[in-house]
């Protein structure tokens, strides 16, 4: 059993402690915005926030949580799709297939929580998500637009 605070709600789930948080969120909690892409923390499609910091949930065992942490998924990032990152993404029409974008958006939003005005070097170091459609050029523009909007 594990108790999670996710997007402001407390839920209790009956899973083994070593179950990755990604699969608990997707299969027990029923929020499918965070995606499975690699299972080894390489691609970042599963990125969520734990206490505001980006975490690759596919390798984060649910048993490592105390139950006090605030977990945020893409579904809980904003009330009306109006987080600055979401607004910038809409304005620049960034998603292509979109499968990696919940993770990309959460990675960027998490970076901006800690570093509201990242340099290009900061972006290079912190945003390491894979996008096979190749939105990377617009993602960099989107980050800068989101900074302006914040």
């Amino acid at each position, binding site marked *: 059993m594990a108790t999670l605070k996710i997007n402001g709600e407390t839920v209790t789930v009956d899973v083994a402690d070593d179950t990755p948080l990604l699969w608990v969120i997707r299969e027990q909690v029923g929020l499918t915005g965070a995606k499975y*892409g690699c299972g080894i923390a390489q691609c970042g499609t599963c990125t969520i926030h734990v206490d505001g910091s980006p975490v690759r949930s596919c390798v984060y065992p649910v048993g490592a949580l105390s139950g006090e942490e605030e977990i945020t998924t893409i579904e809980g990032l904003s009330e*009306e799709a109006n987080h600055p990152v979401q607004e910038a993404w809409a304005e620049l*029409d960034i998603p292509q*297939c*979109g499968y990696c974008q919940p993770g990309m*958006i959460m990675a960027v939003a998490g970076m901006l929580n800690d570093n509201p005005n990242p340099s290009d070097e900061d972006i290079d170091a912190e945003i390491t998500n*894979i996008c*096979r*459609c190749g939105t*990377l050029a617009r993602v960099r523009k989107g980050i800068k637009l989101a900074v302006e909007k914040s």
Partner: protein
Amino acid sequence: MADTGILSRRGFIVGTGATGLTIGILASCSPGASGPEEPDYSDLPPNDEVNAWVHIDHDDTVTVRIARSEMGQGTLTGLAQLVADELDADWDKVTTVYPTPGENLARERVWRSYSTGGSQGIRGSQDYVREGAAAAKAMLIEAAANEWGVAASECTSADSVITHGPSGQTTTYGAVAGAAGKLAPPLEVTVKDPSEWKIIGEAKKRLDTADKLIGAQVYGADIGLEDVLKDTDATPTELLSASIRQSPKIGATVASFDAAAVENMPGVRKVVALNNPFGEGQNAVAVIAETWWQANSALDALPIEWEGGVDFSTEAFEAELDDGLTSDEAFVGNGGGDLAGAFADAAQVIEATYNMPFQNHACMEPMNTTALYTDDRCEIWCPTQNGEAALAAVSEASGLDIQNCEVYKVHLGGGFGRRGAPDYVQQAVMLAMEVPGTPVKLLWTREEDMKHGFFHPTTKGRVRGALDADGNLTGLHLRISGQSILAALIPQALQDGVDYATFQGLLPPGVDPRLEDQTLKYSFDNFLVDHAMRNPPVRPGFWRGVNLNQNAIYLECFMDELAHAAGRDPLEFRLAHLQDSPEAAAVLQAVADRSGWGQDDGKHRGLCVMYGFGSYVAACSEVTVDEDGVLSIDRIVAATDPGHAVNPQQIEAQVEGSFVYGLSAMLFGEITFEDGVAQETNFDTFNSMRIVDMPEVETIIMPSGGFWGGVGEPTIAVAAPSVLNAIYAATGKRVRQLPIKDQNLRDA
């Protein structure tokens, strides 16, 4: 004509404009709020469709039926633009829906092909899609004219409103759509001249973005019981999940597995071996469980013994590829003149050999399908690039008549050619047949996806060139050695044994109507392009851009080598052979001009120009290579002439994305085999570009009109050659062995 059942019942809107998003948010956030008075249509029966392409509600919402699949390439929005423009619709009220492959079958393929590949989504259907919309518009106007008792020729249309000129009275599409649908379609329609386009050619926002920003877009991997219940007439009460392990070794089969070892693990329902969809015997074991994590955990713990298989090694296969490079026997793809004479008289002969390793498509969303089987029906929920092929696969795997099968398409989390193959569809159906009445969602692990691809084929290219004393190219021979995709997948498409698709981008006109969009635009006097087919036991596939990618490396890196050997400017050297293709010369000149080609500014630049998928593309890349041999790709200027540019900002997105796909392969992409087993299993060993690797890309869209070229693929081909040529400019070293990943560019 009435709607068929599924379209009206499903109401599954796959894309919606900004207006839809606003309405959605208002409705969900402020249920008590009331905006401006909206007419109430709730007493009216829903309108029938106007025709197969268009349905219009009383409130003027235009729903465009889209047969091709959306996998990120923007076809959904582009096709909707074609229809909306021809229809004179109000773009802010346009939405889209996928008609199912089963409906297409029942309606005698009214939507024609569902195949989404070869950059054909728009160019392959623009004529009949626009004609369908033009017919719908004519019927709407006729319905209004009938109601008013006036001549249709006195009526005009704009923004979903019909106006009778002499009287000035107006009506809306929604008001007459029901009556329009009952009219006979016009016998002839004329589509607009491009000068009349208002929506085509505009940088419209995509229709499918809103849900992708909030985690609400449902992909195949996300399908749940509620999604199934929206579509099916069956009444399942749960949805099970499955994970699969396929034989790690090519051609191996299941010898044994100890189901008892995992049957009591949490959630496990069934442990089953599956038949090979394309061969003999059982080549996979799957676990069906209550959740996917439980299924996959049980598979991890399941002892499986495999037997047989092929001891294929990419390293050993090099010898076969090398043999093909010098073999006396090869299929001729293009050529002419006196090649032997050119080499005999040459002042200088140069030669180079390049390679292209196996590539995995590596869609971000691993392969998956959800299937529901009952005694008399089988339905799947599937991300597929070819809905009709998926429908046939369901019928074949289930043994049910195709009329009793159905495919509900969902947006793809990447396709790139991989999702045209139906292997995962057949597996999902086989699993669903194990638990009749209960839907099963099969999701591959990334490792399964990486090891069991339909890989971009491996080839080598050896190029020899003859230069005269003045540095003119007088003879060129490109020998391609390696795998044929068609020989493995579509052998009936070979012509007297020749796979002409191998010569993509190098063909003469007139070889095959399906390859007219893949011809060589250079003019050479004495030349030969030929192919020594060497087929490994690895299943090949159509990987975004297909054979254009390596052919561009072989031709365009060598053109650069020739220019330098001749002491000539690589731009001028190329232009000298593009005299018969002003379009190709124009895109090349455009990237040269924009990039600052030829300026003495310390930048290291490389060029590439190609024609493929009906479009002219070029790139000029700028790189730096530091003293330690570390590459930085700094800037790329790209140009594309697709004839007509339906949505410039989406073309720009495809061009930018093409560099990510092409350069990821150049930098990192390689699937190798040892003892028949793929060695790269995930993104740690099959890496993909990250933002740190991403250059600035400037896209020049220069539509010259008069033809419809593809956009999703051609630019990939110019990515690697332009960068490789720039690396030479920076280092004086040629990189001819891909991928670059482990090479020091200063020691190359």
